[in-house]
């Protein structure tokens, strides 16, 4: 396990980066939202890795809480995205730019 420790962390970092880049490049709010979830889960992975590594429970608890919070965020987020879609917008973030400067 100890040997794999850096590996999990690197995986976590990679997931985070993929998620972040996803947010940066994708236009569909749903995909962006998924990317954000990916970032959160990257953090979860890191938390759990560290929990194992430091032999503490806090990380695992933390991860559970994050999962719960992320779930509620998804609920709210999807509802919002649906609302936006219903109000006539296409699911394209670039079109949501009425306010600027």
């Amino acid at each position, binding site marked *: 396990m100890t040997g794999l420790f850096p590996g999990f962390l690197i995986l976590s970092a990679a997931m985070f980066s993929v998620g*972040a880049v996803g*947010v*940066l*490049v994708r236009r569909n709010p749903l995909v962006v939202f998924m990317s954000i979830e990916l970032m959160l889960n990257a953090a979860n992975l890191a938390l759990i890795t560290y929990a194992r590594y430091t032999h503490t429970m806090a990380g695992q608890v933390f991860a559970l809480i994050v999962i719960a919070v992320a779930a509620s965020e998804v609920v709210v987020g999807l509802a919002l995205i649906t609302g936006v879609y219903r109000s006539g917008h296409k699911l394209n*973030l670039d079109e*949501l*730019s009425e306010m*600027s*400067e």
Partner: protein
Amino acid sequence: MNPTLILVLSAIVLGLPTAGFAVSAISAGRLPHRLVAWTGPGVILGAFVATLIIFVAMLQQPASSRGITVVFWHWLNTSVASGHGVAAQTGFNANFSIRIDPLSVLMMLVITGIGGLIHVYSVGYMAEDPGFNRFFAYMNIFITSMLLLVMSNTLVFLVIGWAMVAFASYALIAFWYERRSAVVAGRKAFVTQVIGDVGLYLGAFLIFLNLRGAHGQLLHTVNMQTIFANVGPGAHFHDGLGPLGGGMVTAIGILLFLGAAAKSAQWPLHTWLPDAMEGPTPVSALIHAATMVTAGVYLVARFHPIYQQAPVAAGLVAFIGIGTAMMAGIIGCTQYDIKRVIAYSTMSQIGLMIFAVGVGAYSAGMFQFFTHACFKALLFLAAGNVIHALHDDQDIRLMGGLSKRMKATFVAFTVGSLALAGIPIFAGFFSKEELLGSGLALGPAVPWLWVVGVLVNVLTSFYIFRVVWIAFRGEPRSEHAEHAHEAPLLMLLPVLVLAGLATVVGFLNVDFAGFAPITLFSAFLKPVLGVPAATASDTAGALALLAGFLLSVGGIVLVWAVYGRGLISRELVPNHLPWLYQLSFRKFYWDEIYDVALVRPTVSLATVIRRVIEPEVMDGALGGIRDSIAALADDFRTFQTGFLKDYATWFFFFAVVGLVILGLRLS
């Protein structure tokens, strides 16, 4: 002398004209003219009476105790007394105090006496003017100011009087304020006077800050008597005794003379005087003959203890005086405005006086002032009669033949001219003789300064008799001249009184060699002015007398030859020495020179400030800051594109930047 009496009397002398002014001013011109016609001259004559009482009281004293100082009130004092744990600190400190001594009484007599006559004359001259009340208000305040000037015992009040005279003269010159030329002339006079004021108080500063007492302590005083007591030979002026017998005292002398030059219309501050003839003629008589312009002479005479210590400054004074006398004489020969001719004559005569006091002949200078006050006022008032008769025509080319139509005025004017020219028995002869005699004896670079002074005589008699000839002789050259009438009695009377004075006052001081000396005048002033350091020898005096007399007569003969008989062509000088004629006619181009050298640059600079510096630099700086803020704001706001993707990118970018910097720092 009883100080209380003197206090009361001098309060009356100063207070009466002030009250006359105040009543006119506060009533805003609503008083009936008839009332002002009495009060206007009345207050001045009242002051004259009070002065006479002082004079009489003074004569009863022995010569050595004819000076007295009285304090009206403590003006201000910035000194701090010691105590309360702090040392004392001397600051500026001045009283409103009055000096009554022969010199000031002489001045007061002339100011109130001749001034009173001019006031009486004005009642007639200005009778029809709607600004009658205003005129007398100004005249009264002028007299007050002039009296303050000569009576003050502190430098500060000297300066105050000095500047108030400037204001009053401005108000009188610009009296007919609807005439643009009068307005401009008034402003010119005032600004010139202020230049002189500045010189005066800078000189006062130097005295206040540097004069040391007998024990070498700084005196810090503006009390003129204290100053004079400490400034004599062996005085402890500040240690800055440079070359030329004391740089400090020389600087003081020159600065004071700057004030004198402005008042007395001496080069380089002389250009206001001819323009000042825009004022009503009594104003010219009052200001430019009898009082204001002689203030410079008074100043130098009053401050003779300083000038005696400052030979360089005194020499400069004499030099400028004689130079101005010559220059003004030359200009006077070609002018056509009757008042301007007299004005240049004034400038020229004052130049002689300044020359006299410059070389140290204080008494002679003051005597010339005294006689000049009489005959020059006479000339102006007589000219005023002419102008009045001609409905304000002042050009002598439009006159002619007035001797028949205005006989009394003609006689008076001629008497004045004779006195001015220095023809025997008339006042000017005695005073000018004494003046030139002293000049010969005292002048530093003698003969040639003196020679110039004597040469002025020929010019004097030429230009004044040129006026007599052109204006009064021959045939009328204009409609107005045709129908000229003699002036009313009210205007004639003062003229005749002055004519009488111009004839007789010379005998107050007859001092030529070999004759029985009558020295009433110089003896009276001796306690203040002392005796000249040297007197001309009999031979030299006689020579001076003769030369002066011959040249004066020569001038008259020249006029006769040119204008009377036509023996010499009038076009001789214009044709053969055109530059000289132009120089004279254009008043040596001083107005043009000042315009180019001072006025225009100042106005240009002011315009540049208004049109360029203020909007472009001052506002521009703020505007520039504002604009750059706005520009920056516009630049920065474009980061906020409104695209979520950009926001996330920036967010990510800066987070990464933060991490990178962190990494760099740690590695």
